[in-house]
């Protein structure tokens, strides 16, 4: 299972850039970029903060997906 997210879409819906999103969530622009690229899995605290900033439930942004490589 891998953690996926729809942060980029949610951020676009809010019409804010990564810098502004980072400021709202209390993290750096690089961290938002890492999360959006799927290179970093945020802590529960940060995931909840991001969901709160976006005004949605955390499951609407972050979800688990079957890892294609593990199906063999």
């Amino acid at each position, binding site marked *: 299972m891998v953690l996926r997210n729809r942060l980029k879409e949610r951020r676009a819906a809010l019409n804010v850039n990564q810098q502004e999103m980072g400021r709202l969530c209390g993290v*750096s622009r*690089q*961290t938002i970029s890492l999360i959006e690229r799927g290179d970093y899995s945020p802590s529960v605290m940060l995931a909840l903060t991001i969901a709160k900033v976006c005004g949605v439930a955390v499951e609407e942004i972050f979800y688990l997906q079957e890892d294609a490589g593990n199906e063999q």
Partner: protein
Amino acid sequence: MNNDDVKSANRKALPRFILLTLISTVIGGVVERPVPFIVAVAAFIAVMVETMIIQQRCVDAVKRMNPEKTASVYDVKFQRKWMDSCDEAEKIIVGKCAYKAYAAANTACAVLAIIFAVCALIFNTGVLPSFAVCVIWFVLQFIYYMETIRYSKAGNRIS
């Protein structure tokens, strides 16, 4: 500051770094041995100042890219303030890099301690080099295990 600015700053900083390194090397290599005490002290201070300037330049570059970071190299509590200004992803990166550095330092200390101990036996160089490396090795291990005990008791509540 965009990537082009960073690349431009790096291109400007590199010749200065090479020049400072060359000056240090020339001072260390040209001066006749045994080096007079005052020259050795002056060279040591020059290298320390050079290191501080390079560190300051690096920190300034990072601060220009990340305005939320405000810690100054000249602050006594620089390390703590810098870590406080890092978010969780940056702290994880620091932790992973620090662990790699710790593992490499451990290996280096083990190898150097053995080499110096063998040199002491064969070339009669004395036990001080091996002892100094062992002290550094002990400090590394001691701090690592003390921090491990602290974190195992309090988890991530320790900042």
